[in-house]
């Protein structure tokens, strides 16, 4: 990551040096070689990241891949003279929004939705056809447009990128700015509203809960801890019952759903057998057994 950042900074300087060339009016047709190299390398990273986002089985991996793509895009923003946006991209997007995503991923947990197996008939083919057609058309359309030369941001960023943006935001786009502010407020209120759960009855006291538990009588004492009688006491290892079989009750339900329980019962039984053998050897019980 640090390597990427360094190269992006280098490209930024190269861009700014290029755009601050004396003749603003004459349109350029190419960028610097450094930027080109950076584009090809990081562009590949971005595409791979995007592909991984949609192809990774687990949502967490998808989120991380998307974060990588976004960071690459932030570098591209910087390379294109959008310094403010580049920083915002990292801070707000990658920093805040993606973390929000991760929170939700953890909140929701793992579901069957993670399966990549298609359930809708023909959906994948249609998606492929549409995506291919759309991409071809879009790229063909861009290629068709005669965009051989570009102006560059030298003049626009002359007084500083942030100052330039600020000047526009607070003059020409001030209403849009205010409205998006209102939108943000509305969105946060909406999020609170959506996730808020109204309590419809009084919260139970501890006493009531205990009484209820006794009345039900299914599991009066606390659930057994994981790892009881097993060699490890990690949370993913089921506790063993006295006969050596694992007890499902001892592990978290989520882990069970994910199939992440490590069964050590055979191991334990084998170990137990070996231990008995060893001890009997040491204690010289073989003879006694032979005698019996």
């Amino acid at each position, binding site marked *: 990551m640090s390597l990427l950042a360094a190269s992006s900074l280098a490209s930024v300087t190269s861009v700014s040096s290029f755009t601050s060339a004396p003749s603003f009016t004459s349109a350029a047709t190419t960028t610097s070689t450094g930027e080109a190299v950076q584009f090809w390398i990081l562009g590949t990273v971005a595409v791979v990241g995007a592909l991984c986002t949609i192809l990774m089985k687990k949502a967490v991996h998808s989120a991380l891949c998307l974060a990588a793509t976004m960071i690459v895009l932030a570098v591209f923003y910087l390379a294109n003279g959008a310094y403010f946006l580049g920083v915002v991209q990292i801070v707000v997007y990658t920093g805040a929004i993606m973390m929000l995503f991760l929170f939700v991923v953890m909140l929701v947990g793992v579901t069957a939705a993670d399966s990549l197996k298609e359930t*809708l008939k023909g959906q994948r083919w249609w998606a492929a056809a549409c995506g291919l057609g759309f991409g071809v*058309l879009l790229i063909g359309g861009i290629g068709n447009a005669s965009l051989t030369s570009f102006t560059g941001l030298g003049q626009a960023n002359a007084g500083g990128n942030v100052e330039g943006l600020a000047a526009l935001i607070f003059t020409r786009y001030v209403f849009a700015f205010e409205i998006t502010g209102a939108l943000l407020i509305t969105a946060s209120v909406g999020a609170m509203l959506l996730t808020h759960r109204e309590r419809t009855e009084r919260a139970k006291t501890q006493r009531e809960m205990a009484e209820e538990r006794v009345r039900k009588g299914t599991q009066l004492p606390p659930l057994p801890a994981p790892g009881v009688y097993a060699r490890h006491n990690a949370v993913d290892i089921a506790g063993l019952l006295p006969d050596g079989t694992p007890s499902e009750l001892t592990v978290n339900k989520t882990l069970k759903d994910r199939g992440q329980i490590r069964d050590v019962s055979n191991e334990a039984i084998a170990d137990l057998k070996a231990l008995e053998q060893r001890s009997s050897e040491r204690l010289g019980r073989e003879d006694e057994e032979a005698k019996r």
Partner: protein
Amino acid sequence: MENLIALLIAAPLLGAAVLLCGGRRLDRVGHWLGTLLAAASFVIGVVLFGDMLGKSGEGRSLHQHLFSWIPVEGFQADVAFQLDQLSMTFVLLITGVGTLIHIYSIGYMEHDERRRRFFGYLNLFLAAMLLLVLADNYLLLYMGWEGVGLASYLLIGFWQHKPSAATAAKKAFLVNRVGDMGLSIAIMLMFTTFGTFAFGPVLSSTGDATEGKLTAIGLMLLLAACGKSAQVPLQSWLGDAMEGPTPVSALIHAATMVTAGVYLITRSGAIFNAAPDAQLVVVVVGAVTLLFGAIVGCAKDDIKKALAGSTMSQIGYMILAAGLGPIGYVFAIMHLVTHGFFKAGLFLGAGSVMHGMNDEVDMRKYGGLRKYMPVTFVTFGLGYLAIIGFPGLSGFFSKDKIIEAAFAKGGTEGWILGAVTLLGAAITAFYMTRVMLLTFFGEKRWQPDDNGHEPHPHESPKSMTIPMVILAFGSVFAGGFFSIGDRFLHWLEPVTGHSHGNPPVSATTVTTATVVVLVIGVAIAWFMYGRKPVPVAAPRGSLLTRAARRDLLQDDFNHVVLVRGGEHLTRSLVYVDHTLVDGVVNGTAASFGGLSGRLRKLQNGYARTYAVSMFGGTAVLIAATLLMRAV
């Protein structure tokens, strides 16, 4: 004075209401009450007539606005009456003959336990008919028109226990509905054309409308007239209508209701005058019916059906005359009035004969009745002489005028029409002489009926003979009274207008020709039926005779063309409905259902599938954008 007009209608209407709602306690006096109210209406009519005679010119037309019926913006229908000379003529005829027939019915229906109801229906008929001729707009006329249709239906089917009577009533009603439809369409056309349907505005503004529209209105009015007046092609109901009691046949199906068509055409004269094509059709219909009815009348052995054919034929004369335009309107009405007298008289005579003969209607089983029923014989004979146009009697004057008017039409048309009317006169003379000879002359041919009762022919009671005598007076003198000094012409001319046309032959020639054909017709009849005894069983007869006995195949024609055609049409429509319409509807529904079933699979509820479609849509949009750029 004009306030009396409503009373004309109110009197019989009150009678109908009381008699029909009053229940059995009125059985004793019901017939007297009905007759009294009919007579009251007649008296009011006479009072109004006297008042009208006292006035002159425009003042003769009275108008009474009773109330606003349907007052809608742009659509004003009033209950208002108009009493002019034309209406007056009808009022006197309807109430006069009507009263006589009420009196006659007292005797005729004596043994019928439903006599009160019968008089209620008769009063209802009088009220509706008076409403028809007194209305000052077509909508009110339509109401009266439907009213007489209803009364006619009720009275034809009065003996509803007889299936034939019930069927005949239904037939009359259905055929009349066709004509009524024509009248309603005509009224709608009038409203769209003139914005009103009151007589005054419509008839005075015919110049504003195109001839095509007037022709359409005229043809629709003619259709209505055909239905009510039993003209070809809607003639088939009249013969069967004789299933009703004979007074009904006399009043409704001879003297008054069936002439409503003539009234309608005469009243709408302005429309027909402005639509020569419609007029031509009227004339053709009249001429065809004239011969049709006459031929049917020749072949029938049922006395009432023979008279019904005659009625059809005589109304054909009137329609023909009305179709001639101003040349003929007055004579059409004049013939209508005289015909009202003598045909009512003839029917009452026929009823009297049947009364004495145990309700036998087959003329071949009569014979020699003149000795047994002298009064009936004399009155019927006078009616007979009147209808065949014996010089000096009513029918002579009125029919002769119509024949003259037919010639006066001019050109080839005039000659053809003249010839047809003359031929009709000859046939009339033939079949009426046949009726006369079969009924009153020769030897007696009656036999015991199925129960072994030998009929004892006898003269009818006074209540029946007196009306016959009065009507016979009318049959004899009315024509002469009207014609001397052209009284009737001058009376009616202010309403209908009159023109002399351009007769290619002189009136004397026509009269001579009429008398000659009359003599020929009578002679042929005498040769066929007078010289030798008449067989009781009808001979097989020629093809024409057999066809005429079946009403010239009118019912077969209707059955084949209309009934079976209608059935086929219905069946094919049902088929089309089942296959095409239902197919389209069900097919649409099914295809939508199937489509939805398939589209539903796209809506599988998975957000990712929707995302694919969004994404694919975006791709398509980009492709379209690029494509548009490239082009």
